[in-house]
């Protein structure tokens, strides 16, 4: 079931440099969403552009959902200024969700704008007491909003070394899991900038690890009618709909794809 619901903003805060977290009361979407799914948001009721803004859900439960986003463009700047009590037009939950984490040792890797679905999965794994490793990348310490805790298998990287390990998320992967040192049931779950995910994908490939990636594409509707949010899959992939075998839709067939299934993350 897809709901269109007016979410009521109950908090909207800058949690790190340029990064905002908004919590909505949105009972229907909250009770029906799974980690990895997204909502398609109308930034304001007098929004003059035509496209909504798709945002991964960072948490769900107790009638609430949250999103985490960088204020970078026209839509997200409006969002960063939402007042408490404001009603926001939401469509969701949309897309597929993280799977295969119960029977694996999950290494979950996020960076940049890909924080929300990774944190959502992290929380679920904590709740279900599933042992896992969280790796989060940023350019510098100002963009992180929780501590580097290697003892709890929470690793942060920064490009400039101002917090955690200097380098990117794949540098962390390589330093804590040298080639061949993975337990057999390790599975990687990742979301972040396309370049980062391509590196994570290469790493998984080299280490023969199962890997799921949550991709970000440009998107209009979010529910399969505009057919704009295309992701190119390897031709032999068998889909349900013949005409979506090669050009899958991020909104229906994704946003989560297996690393082996797609041509690239860009």
């Amino acid at each position: 079931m897809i709901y269109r619901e007016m979410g009521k903003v109950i908090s909207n805060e800058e949690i790190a440099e340029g990064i905002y977290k908004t919590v909505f009361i949105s009972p229907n979407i909250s009770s029906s969403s799974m980690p990895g799914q997204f909502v398609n948001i109308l930034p304001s009721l007098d929004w003059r552009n035509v496209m909504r803004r798709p945002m991964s859900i960072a948490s769900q439960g107790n009638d609430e959902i949250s999103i985490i986003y960088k204020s970078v463009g026209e839509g997200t700047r409006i969002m960063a200024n939402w007042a408490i009590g404001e009603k926001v037009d939401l469509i969701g939950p949309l897309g597929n969700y993280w799977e295969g984490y119960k029977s694996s040792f999950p290494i979950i890797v996020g960076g940049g704008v890909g924080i929300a679905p990774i944190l959502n999965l992290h929380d679920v794994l904590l709740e279900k007491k599933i042992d896992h490793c969280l790796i989060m990348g940023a350019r510098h310490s100002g963009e992180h909003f929780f501590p580097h805790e290697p003892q709890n298998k929470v690793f942060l990287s920064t490009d400039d070394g101002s917090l955690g390990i200097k380098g990117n998320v794949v540098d962390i992967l390589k330093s804590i899991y040298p080639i061949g040192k993975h337990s057999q049931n390790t599975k990687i779950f990742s979301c972040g900038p396309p370049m980062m995910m391509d590196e994570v994908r290469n790493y998984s490939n080299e280490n023969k690890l199962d890997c799921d990636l949550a991709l970000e594409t440009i998107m209009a509707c979010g529910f399969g009618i505009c057919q704009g949010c295309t992701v190119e899959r390897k031709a032999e992939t068998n889909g349900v709909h013949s005409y979506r075998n090669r050009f899958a839709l991020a909104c229906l067939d994704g946003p989560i794809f297996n690393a082996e299934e797609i041509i690239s993350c860009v």
Partner: protein
Amino acid sequence: MRVKLKDIEFSSPILTASGTYGYGHEVRDMADVNQWGGIITKSVTRHPREGNPPPRIAETRSGMINSIGLANLGVEKYCNEIIPSLNELQTKVIINIAGSAMKDYLETMEMLESKNGKHVGYEINISCPNVKEGGIEFGVNCEMTEQLTIEMRKRTDKLLIMKLSPNVTRIEDIAQAAESGGADAVSAINTVVGMAIDVKTRRPKLNTAFGGLSGPAIKPIAIANVHKVFKAVNIPIIGIGGIATAKDVVEFLLAGATMVQIGTMNYQNPNLGIQLKGELSEYYSQNEIEKTEDLIGKVEYHSN
């Protein structure tokens, strides 16, 4: 609010534009699809098409450009998988057909005709700007438009609507060709050729470089084209292009449209057509308009 095209009565003059509402059932959680005047389905072609490579869409000011490339499962699967679900809809269904050669258009229609679907008509896409095979060769040529219309007319008694492109020198000539070929109505406009470039990478924002611009950005172009066609033909016009409000609908009616289609704004609000039906009815009562016909083509020119 009721309006007739030939002998078919629609509960409201508001239809979905092809390619912007799937086959209706995709949005059933969010909208009572049967409240639309009718559903015009995404283009079907003779053979399956996987469509164009990404990126296929880009946002521009008050609009978007797309180059989907008529991705669809082809008429054979359409007959087996889509028609049964279309038959369950309580509203009127019009099937949109695209093609490249005359033979493709005709075979597609023949297969659909043989199916005993509940659909009331066909809209013929002779104006897709994004693929060579999208029929645009027909849509820019009067003789080809007339020939295609004649051949399709021979094959169906259902509503026959030719969808016109604004990317021509004189849209009124193409409209007349459709009329003399036997079309029951024309719809106008399909998207306007557009392009956007990422200044950082210097790459076009669409894989195919050129695409079709739609949304409120094209409404004035659409109004002008509808009005030109209105002055040139006697068959009804279905106006399309950037409708977002009830006033937009009235503007199209005044320009000469008998019905309208809502397209791009469905992506933002899948309930828009139903909402506008209510607002339009309020507009009618506030302005003492008894029926839609009282507005059609009633634009009043400046007298000087």
